[in-house]
């Protein structure tokens, strides 16, 4: 294996990989531009429902986006996390890289930064993500990521409140072992980070 130039990508996202490679060999030759173009293909195509708008709704049915660009020559980084209402997360990350001396901007304030950089604010929810969210709600909000709260998160939706500290201490070792068990979340090709 081996031979430069090279693009390597997780999963079978061949369109994105090809676009980045073409950008590298025919287009701007700038590896950061190639990276952004490649990731942007998947943001547009909503690759496996795990990239871009309209996928992986949170408990409110909202889709939020995370993206990062790292330059291995300068060790400069631009990233956004929990970006709300802006579709082009990799492009916004590029503005963090190019237009700030920060590394990571998050949440609604990252959205305000994106709008300042000229990005459009628009809902990231689609019919598909809305129906995924409804199905989850209709299934007593299972699975979820809560623990040590009442009502019991294994049986019902929130809102929740924390159980008392001594109630937590009564956790038996076997349940503590269960805490490292993440199989309930069905992570895999169509659900992951």
């Amino acid at each position: 294996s081996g031979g430069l130039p090279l693009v390597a990508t997780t999963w079978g996202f061949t369109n994105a990989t090809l676009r980045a490679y073409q950008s590298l060999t025919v287009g701007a030759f700038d590896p950061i531009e190639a990276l952004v173009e490649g990731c942007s293909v998947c943001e547009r195509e909503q690759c496996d429902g795990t990239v871009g708008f309209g996928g992986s709704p949170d408990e409110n049915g909202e889709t939020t986006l995370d993206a990062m660009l790292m330059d291995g020559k300068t060790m400069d980084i631009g990233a956004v996390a929990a970006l709300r209402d802006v579709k082009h997360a990799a492009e916004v990350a590029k503005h963090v890289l190019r237009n700030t001396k920060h590394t990571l901007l998050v949440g609604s304030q990252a959205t305000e930064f994106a709008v300042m950089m000229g990005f459009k604010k628009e809902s990231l929810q689609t019919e598909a993500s809305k129906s995924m969210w409804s199905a989850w709600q209709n299934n007593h909000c299972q699975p979820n990521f809560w623990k040590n709260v009442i009502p019991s998160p294994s049986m019902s939706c929130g809102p929740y409140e924390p159980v008392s500290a001594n109630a937590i201490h009564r956790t038996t070792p076997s349940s503590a072992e269960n805490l490292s068990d993440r199989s309930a979340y069905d992570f895999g090709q169509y659900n992951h980070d």
Partner: protein
Amino acid sequence: TISMIVINEDKHVVAGTSTNGARHKIPGRVGDSPIPGAGAYADAEVGAAVATGDGDVMMRFLPSLLAVEAMRSGLSPAEAGQQAIGRIAKYYPSFVGGIVVVTKDGQYGAACHGMEEFPYSVADGTVADGDVRVLTVKC
């Protein structure tokens, strides 16, 4: 999640990610993708690594940084990836995740856990016209 490594002919190494994260997360939750050393890490003196999977767990171990540092101390890309993934599996045997690791010269490998196999895509100078190949590694 798309996590990508790009290296041009001048051996300028970059890495990046873009994702909408895990389903049904608590609002405000962020995965490993935008965390340096977790979702991706690049060092032009060594190479780069990118990861994907259960971000709550993976970010606790900074697998991309671990893999790049393992290559810095001489491991192959596949061995480096396996070492990083193995670290996570030791504490979280049921976690799901994959990592793609590449040296600055374009040697690549991958490792994974919790899936039958993990597919990754490569386009490089060894194949005419940079055709994209989808390779798989057994977990």
